[in-house]
């Protein structure tokens, strides 16, 4: 009887240890997954906040601009957007992989520099000439082929702030 019982508790113990290891593995995986999800979520929130700030700045500077010019670079140096402000300063948007640098230049000298970090993706600019020239910022994430490819477009009319100053009609 006593021997029987002793054997049973050993089997039980091994079962408990086995189950416990399964539980531990599951718990570790869950925690890792949760941490990854949390990290990805935080990165997405930070990127979205930065993108909103960038979009606000782009709209503001484009509305104030008296001149908008796109400088197309080669593969090593991607394109830049130069917005000439009424006070003579030039705000230059320099896109990079996963970031956009905004440099304020006065007489070709850097006066201010700000970097907007984005969660991957590439930014490019389009200028559509018309009665009111349209400057667009296009932020593209994901591959062309993938389902997650998306383009967020920010449109701003160049010189919108000054549209009442010039006498037309």
């Amino acid at each position: 009887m006593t021997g029987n019982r002793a054997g049973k508790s050993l089997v039980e113990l091994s079962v408990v240890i086995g189950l416990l290891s399964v539980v531990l593995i599951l718990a570790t995986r869950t925690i890792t997954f949760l941490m990854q999800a949390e990290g990805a979520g935080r990165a997405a929130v930070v990127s979205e906040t930065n993108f909103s700030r960038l979009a606000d700045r782009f709209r503001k500077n484009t509305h104030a601009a008296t001149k908008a010019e796109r400088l197309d670079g080669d593969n090593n140096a991607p394109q830049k957007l130069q917005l000439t402000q009424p006070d003579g300063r030039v705000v230059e948007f320099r896109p990079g992989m996963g970031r956009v640098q905004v440099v304020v230049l006065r007489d070709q000298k850097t006066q201010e520099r700000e970097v907007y970090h984005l969660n991957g993706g590439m930014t490019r600019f389009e200028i559509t000439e018309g009665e009111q020239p349209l400057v667009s910022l296009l932020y593209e994430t994901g591959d062309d082929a993938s389902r997650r490819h998306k383009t967020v477009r920010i449109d701003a009319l160049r010189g919108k702030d000054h549209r009442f100053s010039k006498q037309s009609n």
Partner: protein
Amino acid sequence: MKHHPPHSTRGLANRSRVAGFTLIELMVAMMMLGSLMVTLVPLLSWVNAQRRAAAARQVAVHAAINVLEHFSARSWNDVTQDAADAVTLSADSAALLREPRLKVTVQLVEKQPISKRIAVELRWKNRAGNDLSPVRLTSFVYRRTGTP
């Protein structure tokens, strides 16, 4: 049995009770873990859905600002309800939202100085097919002084 002192019988009984205890404990632990998992998994998907909704909202806000940007730049006489009805989302923005519905309304505000109220309302659906609270933006355009 007669030779066993009473305390040893008690000891045996105790031991068997202790052995049974681990099994019950294990079951309780497993049940607790199970209930934890059951609550955790929907929570995870809920957080994910929340994140997707936030991303879609940001896209919708930018899309609505773009619409307002173009429409409010029209000249006073071109800001009409007919023109507002013809406004559509850009293809880029439309592709990122589920069943987007855009409504632009123009309203003349008689109060001096006379202005026109432009309201942009953008609705879309989430993955489950439910309508989310729409993005609403309003802007006022004023008549340029000196124009007829």
